[in-house]
């Protein structure tokens, strides 16, 4: 479904992603792991069109995305839950969710989509008219995921969803991610929390300072000695 080929991404003159290639198949949960500054978020931003790669290709079902603007990429079925949630603080939960369906194709059946999201996150239903800026971290994360789902994406990308959240909430969020996959949405997950990510992912890629250093099935990486030492603290 997603085929990333030899991506080179720069911030000005500084290269942060080197020759990155990976893929995501339909129905998978794939995770990009790595420490802070490894280039994971940069990669997601490039996939979403917020950044332009200097070299390389991004193919989504064979369609090249690397030259498209961010709003065009969403319309093609690729939605991102950004790092730090990035909700609109002065708008209510419902307004935040509704705007997720902004692309024209997603506007049909927006009422039904809204109900589905509120069923997925019952805690939000009680807070629908609350200003997003007043929500707790966990609630904000739920709104952010819900907002991305409103675009009816075929590929959902999550950038560090566990950041700053209590373990109980994180568990809940990862449960939801698995529900989402069961409903037919493919998931690309960027996480610093390797243990959590590897417990849900089918396959994983490990980045270090912008380069791919390891890849394989989730289980295999969980068992890998290097990974265990460096990222799982075992």
């Amino acid at each position, binding site marked *: 479904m997603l085929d990333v080929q030899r991506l080179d991404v720069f911030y000005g003159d500084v290269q942060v992603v080197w020759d990155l290639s990976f893929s995501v198949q339909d129905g998978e949960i794939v995770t990009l792991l790595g420490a802070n500054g490894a280039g994971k978020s940069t990669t997601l931003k490039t996939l979403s069109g917020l950044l332009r790669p200097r070299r390389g290709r991004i193919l989504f079902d064979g369609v090249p995305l690397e030259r498209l603007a961010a709003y065009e990429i969403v319309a093609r079925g690729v939605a991102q839950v950004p790092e730090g949630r990035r909700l609109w603080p002065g708008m209510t939960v419902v*307004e935040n969710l509704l705007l997720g369906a902004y692309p024209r194709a997603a506007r049909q059946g927006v009422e039904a989509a809204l109900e589905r999201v509120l069923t997925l996150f019952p805690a939000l239903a009680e807070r629908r008219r609350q200003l997003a800026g007043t929500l707790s971290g966990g609630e904000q994360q739920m709104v952010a995921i819900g907002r991305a789902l409103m675009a009816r994406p075929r590929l959902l990308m999550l950038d560090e969803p566990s950041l700053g959240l209590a373990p109980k909430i994180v568990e809940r969020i990862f449960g939801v991610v698995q529900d989402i996959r069961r409903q037919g949405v493919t998931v690309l997950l960027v996480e610093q929390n390797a243990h959590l990510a590897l417990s849900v992912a089918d396959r994983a890629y490990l980045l270090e300072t912008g380069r791919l250093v390891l890849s394989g099935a989730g289980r295999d990486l969980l068992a890998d000695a290097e990974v265990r030492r460096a990222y799982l603290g075992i």
Partner: protein
Amino acid sequence: MIEQLFNGLVSGAVYALMASGLSLIWGTLKMLNFAHGEFYMLGGFGVYLGLLLAGFSPLLAVPLAMLGAGVVGIVAGRLVIHPLLDQPGWDVSPVIATLGLSILFQNLALHLWGERFKNIPYYIEGGVDLLGIRMAWQRVLIVAVTVVMIAVVVIALRRTWWGRALRATAQDRDAAMLAGINVYAVYLWTMGLAAALAALAAAMLAPIYSVNPWMGTALLLKAFIVCVLGGLGSLGGAILGGILLGTTESLTVILWSSEWKDVVAFVLLILVLWVRPAGLLGTREW
């Protein structure tokens, strides 16, 4: 007294229209539009052209002037502001660019239409006796049209897809892009809307004060002050600030003299920056 208060309301309406547009541009594009007085001026000339040269009725000339100014706003946005976005120096570049636009528009108007003040006939003659004073229909019209226009804008911002997209772009631009909103298009629509609002203000005021290439300059300064008064970026603040400035100026005319009227704006500015720099409704999202 009541007459002056009424006049204050009329000025307040004009200030509110101007400041709303400025506030929209600041809130969404995060820039100060120094050409805003010229959007106002172009609106005035637009009505002049429509009424006196083409012979349209005000019902047609005013909306056309708004549309014309809106188009100018969009084109100016695309040609002048768009290339500056995402480039270094954004805190200064739009100021310089819009100052340049301001000079361009003033001299263009001077060249096209000359320096003589153009008079425009009142849209409605006569007045009405209310609360012991005579209110000219033209002035009542200014207040009425302003109230309606601002109500339309506020409702559009709250209830329409486009309005919510604008608010989202103002509050978090990257998140807006990720939601599928074309923020560059939003920026252009914002400039167009702001210009149209300024043009409306001029179109309504033109019969009273006439039209000339520099009519926007003094008003721009007051519009900025109103924005600071109400809180930069707050639409409600722009409206509240406009009414506040308008009525305070009028009260000053009664209590002191009309020579002190223009001082009021700056006194209020200093007071606000001293006591509550964020403005009356500042740091509130809209």
